[in-house]
């Protein structure tokens, strides 16, 4: 049974107004404090970020002002350019020289060699013309050269003179004249060379026939150049300079001692580039 209570009941709002107000004020203060704290924190962060950004910008500007080209760097760059240029212009001569010297026949003599601007000029004494052709062919097969030109072939001759009998009475032995070079036209030599090449190109049907192996090793223009030289030699007027001594001789015999060929080798571009490699 419910107990009687004559104490007037306070209305809900009158009973809970103060606690609710305190609670609401507490919540408001808490929320406001939290919001203020967050807002202040965000402002602090924003201010710090702004200061950091301005500081970085100042540093960037300062660094830009300080960014002056270093003389050492310029020297280094210049050195690098020079090195690059040198590397690009460098030619490895050794393989070519090695090839050219190792390919020389045993009876050949290298008299002079000059190298400049990717070109090697040789002056070699050969015993026979066939040796010249073999040497050219052999060096051609090395693929180190783009072009091989036979600039000149000179025969070195020796004339043997036989003195008259009166002189023979005193001295029966024949007199040998000194070697004069060049003492004889090259026509016979050119003709001989032509014949050698014709022999190698025999059966091909062309006007100027070359050996297939020769054809493989020489480029068409090279062959043309060689042929033109040969033709020039073949059609050229002989220039004979026979040095005859005043001394009467009974007989004279001309003997070819060796052939001096001047050969020009143009190094292959690939080889030159390969030589540029470190």
């Amino acid at each position, binding site marked *: *049974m419910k*107990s009687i*209570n*004559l*104490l*007037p009941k306070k209305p809900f709002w009158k009973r809970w107004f103060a606690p609710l107000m305190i609670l609401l004020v507490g919540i408001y203060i808490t929320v406001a404090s939290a919001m203020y704290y967050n807002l202040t924190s965000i402002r602090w962060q924003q201010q710090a970020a702004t200061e950091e950004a301005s500081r970085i910008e100042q540093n960037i500007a300062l660094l830009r002002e300080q960014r002056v080209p270093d003389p050492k760097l310029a020297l280094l760059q210049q050195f690098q350019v020079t090195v690059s240029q040198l590397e690009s212009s460098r030619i490895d001569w050794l393989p070519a020289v090695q090839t050219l010297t190792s390919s020389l026949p045993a009876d050949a003599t290298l008299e002079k060699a000059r190298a400049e601007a990717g070109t090697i000029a040789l002056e070699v004494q050969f015993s026979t013309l066939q040796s010249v052709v073999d040497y050219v062919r052999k060096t051609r097969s090395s693929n180190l050269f783009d072009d091989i030109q036979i600039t000149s072939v000179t025969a070195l001759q020796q004339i043997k003179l036989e003195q008259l009998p009166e002189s023979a009475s005193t001295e029966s032995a024949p007199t040998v004249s000194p070697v004069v070079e060049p003492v004889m036209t090259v026509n016979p030599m050119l003709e001989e060379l032509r014949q050698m090449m014709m022999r190698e190109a025999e059966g091909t049907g062309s006007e100027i026939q070359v050996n297939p192996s020769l054809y493989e090793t020489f480029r068409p223009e090279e062959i043309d150049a060689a042929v033109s030289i040969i033709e020039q030699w073949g059609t050229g007027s002989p220039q004979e300079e026979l040095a005859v001594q005043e001394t009467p001789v009974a007989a004279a015999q001309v003997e070819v001692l060796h052939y001096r060929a001047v050969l020009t080798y143009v190094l292959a571009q690939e080889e030159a580039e390969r030589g540029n490699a470190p």
Partner: protein
Amino acid sequence: MLTSVKQLIDRFSSRSLGIEITDTHIKWLEASINSGGIEIHAADAEPIASGAIAEGKVQEVAPVIQALQTVKQRNAPAAKHTNLILPSILTMVRFLELPDVKVNHLRKIIDLELQYHVPLPFDRPYYDFTKLPRNDDANMKLQTIDPVPEAAAVLESTDESESVKTGKTCDVMLVAAPLDDIEIYSSILTNVGLKPSSIEIKALSLQRLIERTNPFDPSSTYLTIDITPIYTDISMYSGGALRITRNKSLDFPASEDVENDFEFFTACQELMSEVNRFINFYRYTLNNRNQEVEHLFLSGDIAAIASVADYLGDRLQIPVHRAAISYDSPRGFKAIPNTGFAGALGAAARGRFE
């Protein structure tokens, strides 16, 4: 350690204060309810300046506050809530038979009843009510009032209209008092720093005391008489509920020696006649013929309470139980006899949550 903590918790949790303010005294009793019954921690009384309260109405607030402040300072209560007994002369108790509906709807019906059928003699009445348990044995019929049409209209829209149609009713006890006086007494407590938890009438406090102390079967039909030097409260209980109560002005002498006191015997004769009329009214007018009064519970703060008990016991031929307040208060029991704290003890026994 744990015992100390438990005692500390009990000290501040289960204690409550019962205060009864009469025309002459403020009765102060602090007690706690536990499994062993009611434990009294303090009982004291302080006289109020003459004329400060007349017939229950506070004429001068200051002397009452001063007396209450004095007794408070003297006892330093640990209780946080206070139950106050309003003077019976200020209150009015009505018993109604109303449709058995929910409490909220019942309150609307009571509002209409008070407005149209049972007007209260107060300018600003304040009331509370409770449903009473049915007394089946007695087939008790209290004052029957037909619900007014407005009340029926309120109930028509509810499921409980069936209760009205079928005539199912409930007994309702209505206790009312002037709101002005309630506010004055409440403000007196507030002024001295006490927080009133409840305000009730002495008849209900005595009923609670009997239920908690069990001097006899609380569900039996019994009578309580509380005597003060100015007026006497007589109440009838049956089936564990207050059935009727009455306040009668009787002048009992203040002295304890009443052996040849004509005034005392005159007052006793008047009390005896009033009790007989009261019982007859309850049994025959209220149609409770089968209910014999089995016990009489006597309390009060007159000095000759024991002589009154003997007088009533001899003539009514029913057991008379005097309120037993076993607490040796050095001051309060000098001012008034222990039976005078019965109402305050019953109020304190209400506790906090009842």
